[in-house]
Structure formats: C-alpha cells, structure tokens
C-alpha cells in the first residue's frame, strides 16, 4: 500500500516536472521570437522615424478587433478543456481558426490596396512586418487545426491538455505582437507621400 502510494506520488511529481519544463521551454521560445519581432519593430522607427505612409485605418481597426476576438475564443477553448467541457472547447477552437483565417484575408486585402510598393522604405517595413506576423498567424491556424483534430479523436482532458494550452498561448503571443505592430504601422506617425 505504502509502495503504491509512493509510486503514485513519484509519477505525479514526474508529470508535474515535465509540465513545468514544457512551460519554461515555451516561454523561452516566446522570448527568442520577441527578439525577431522586436528588431523588426525597431527597424520601422529607425528607417521611417515617426513618419508613415497612408494605410486604411478602418481596415486596420477591424482586423485588430478580429484578432482580439480570436484571443477571447482561444481563451474560452483553453478554459473549457480545463473543465472537461470538450464540446465547447471544440467549437471555440473552430471559431479561433475561422477568425485567424479572416485576419489573414484582411492582411492580404490590405496588401492588395496598399498605396505603396515593396521598393519604398515604408513598403519594405510594412510588408516585412505584416508578412512575418501573418506567417505566424497561419502557423497558429495550422496548429489549432491539428489540436482540434486530436480533440475530436478523444485526446485531452482537464488533467492532460498542455497541447491545447501551449497552442493557445502561442496564439496569444501572436496577438501580443500585433498589439505593438498595429500602433507602429497604422497609428503612430505623420502621413507622408513617397518622395517627400
């Protein structure tokens, strides 16, 4: 009896250590990604100062709110699986995927109507920053889809759901990046026209 209890405690401790290692590893990944995104943000101000070219303000606000909404659905999915509410988690993961796709389409549309091109300084900055961010959004959508498939196959429960939490945290990280990119590209700066 005592041996069984000791073994169970040992197994619980081992699982907990693994979970902590997963979390720390994920945060280290976020910090390394922050360096890339931070450098791009710095280059925007280094190359353009507080100037920028005209971008569609309404579209910028709409896609920002869509990404914010997707963070709410992702949060709901994670909280639902923590409470073993699998059906709600499944629907919320799907909603997050859909909102991520809409955001990406919005960025693509912004690219198509942009009044600058990639050969201009602001164009280079804008397309690089939004392009790398959108690539991360697409990666997040793929990961969310894979997690959703696993969830539908009966995986994950309130006791074992790090894949869901990790993917949702990645999604929030993508949102955090946009929290800085949105004002830097759309809001801050005097609007200048090319050649000025």
């Amino acid at each position: 009896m005592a041996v069984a209890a000791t073994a169970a405690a040992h197994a619980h401790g081992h699982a907990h250590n693994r979970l902590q290692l997963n979390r720390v590893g994920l945060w280290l990944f976020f910090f390394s990604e922050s360096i890339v995104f931070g450098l791009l943000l710095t280059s925007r101000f280094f190359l353009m100062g507080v100037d920028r070219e005209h971008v569609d303000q309404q579209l910028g606000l709409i896609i920002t709110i869509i990404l914010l909404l997707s963070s709410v659905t992702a949060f709901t999915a994670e909280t639902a699986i923590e409470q073993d509410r699998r059906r709600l988690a499944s629907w919320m993961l799907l909603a997050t995927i859909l909102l991520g796709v809409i955001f990406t389409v919005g960025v693509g549309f912004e690219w198509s109507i942009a009044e600058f091109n990639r050969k201009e300084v602001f164009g280079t900055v804008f397309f690089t920053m939004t392009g790398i961010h959108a690539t991360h959004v697409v990666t997040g959508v793929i990961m969310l889809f894979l997690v959703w498939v696993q969830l539908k196959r009966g995986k994950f429960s309130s006791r074992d759901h790090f894949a869901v939490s990790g993917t949702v945290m990645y999604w929030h990280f993508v949102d955090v990046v946009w929290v800085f990119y949105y004002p830097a590209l759309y809001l801050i700066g005097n609007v200048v026209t090319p050649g000025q």
Partner: protein
Amino acid sequence: MKAFQKGYVVAILLAVLTIVEYIFAVNFDNELVKFVGLSAAALAKVGMIGAYFMHFMRIFKTEEAH
C-alpha cells in the same frame, strides 16, 4: 464560471483600450504625446494578456491541481 468571467472582463478592457488607442491616434497631432500614449496603452494590453491569457505566473508555481 468564474474562470470564464475573469477572461471576458479582461477582453472587454482590451477592446476598450484598442478603441481608445484608435480615437486618441486619429484625433491627436502631437507625435511625441501620441508615441508615449500608444506605447503605454500597448504595454498595459500586453501586461493583461500575459497575466490573464498566457498565465505568465504559472511558470513560477511549484504545484497545482492538474
């Protein structure tokens, strides 16, 4: 239910801050004030997302339920 509610309150605060950011940026002309104001708003938003959505403090926890 409490876990959901806390997240939704944070989400509403984030939405309000985003709208305030937009209105502030569109109506303000002083670039320095705009830069400082928008940076402060962005840091506040990131703090909330990190604390409540990304559970930053969990990496310092030694033991928990699941």
